[in-house]
């Protein structure tokens, strides 16, 4: 009886991964191919992404939903960016020197940044500055993955993830100030950090 139940449970898990693959495999391949313009590398990216995501299947509640679809897009495109950067040797700055430029303390929370009505625009602006910043911020605060999990998912070091989250927050702050949120905040009497 236990064996039978085990098989049933296992069938459910199997269909979840299979469903995910057959639902999104074309889209995953398309994203990777668009970035890398290489048929074989795009194949590798799809395989890598599936292997990585299979370790987190218990965190995926539903397959046919925007949350899961966007999650796959984020994973595939960030793995692709990393491969692209490696290929083009763009990412030449060693991690140690990247970490040096990050101050010890995080950016202080400043209430003037919060404008819920502008959040969608902020997300768009952040994505325009650097898609990876927006993606990692989303993985961290929306999907609630830890830094080490994000690092494992998108083939990055944990230190690099931390740096990118920090930079994403800095970029958001800059955009907020640029967009006049500062004036709004002042109008409502919030104190701003100088």
């Amino acid at each position: 009886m236990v064996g039978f139940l085990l098989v049933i449970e296992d069938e459910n898990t199997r269909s979840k991964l299979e469903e995910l693959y057959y639902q999104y495999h074309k889209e995953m391949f398309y994203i990777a191919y668009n970035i890398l313009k290489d048929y074989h590398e795009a194949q590798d990216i799809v395989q890598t992404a599936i292997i990585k995501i299979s370790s987190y299947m218990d965190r995926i509640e539903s397959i046919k939903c925007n949350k899961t679809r966007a999650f796959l897009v984020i994973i595939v495109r960030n793995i692709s960016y990393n491969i692209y950067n490696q290929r083009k040797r763009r990412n030449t700055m060693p991690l140690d020197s990247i970490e040096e430029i990050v101050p010890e303390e995080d950016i202080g929370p400043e209430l003037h940044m919060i404008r819920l009505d502008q959040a969608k625009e902020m997300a768009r602006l952040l994505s325009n500055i650097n898609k990876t910043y927006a993606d990692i911020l989303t993985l961290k605060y929306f999907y609630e993955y830890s830094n080490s999990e994000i690092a494992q998912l998108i083939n990055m070091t944990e230190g690099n993830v931390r740096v990118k989250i920090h930079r994403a927050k800095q970029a958001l702050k800059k955009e907020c100030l640029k967009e006049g949120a500062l004036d709004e905040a002042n109008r409502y009497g919030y104190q701003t950090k100088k």
Partner: protein
Amino acid sequence: MKQTDMDTRQKNKIFESYYGYIGSCHIENIIADQDNEGEEIKEVEFPKNIDEWFVKFHRKYRRKERVKKLNRRFKKAGCKVAVLLLLVISMGTVLTCTVEAFRIKILNFFIEDNKEYTSVQVKEDEESIPDSWSNYYYPEYLPQDFMLDNSEIMNDKKILRFIDGDKFILITQSPNGTNYQMDTENAEADKIVINDYEGLLIEKQENTTIIWHNEECSFNIISNIISDELMKVVKNLEKR
């Protein structure tokens, strides 16, 4: 906790929620972008060998998942079994301490110490030779499951009875010169040699009788086991 620390923690929570909300908006943007490219995605030429790879990978993945699940189940069951065992041991201890009948049963677990090891063996209530006995012969070999049922002295005869169900071995030993009377009517009698001494083996119906003597004692052994086994018992009588 200082007020400023509490304020910072609260603000951090607010900002984490805000970043989460930006993430949610980012997802909407991603989906919108992907939907715009919907037609191109549909038309993409997807390599078939990834499907083949996936089938293999999925098989391995299923196997791993099954092992993981089994491990989880065993861990859970292991905890339950440990608790159950602890309960049984606790109950057994309490019963042993409080109920005499139970204590007797438990103490029948006979603990025997050896030099290299300690063996624990459950024994039924076996008769033992009285301490007052000396200079008697005892079989060092007994067929499996035979145990001493009775030991008694009648005049100068020492009698040992071993049983295993309805099988028995009756060993009577006495100083030389004791008279034994045997029923040999319709019986087969053969001369035998036991440890260099002559003896007589009499088989009648289901019973076998062996009579022999050494320089000290005369023996009369009666049994309903096969004569070969009985011979082994007789040959292995040792003085104690």
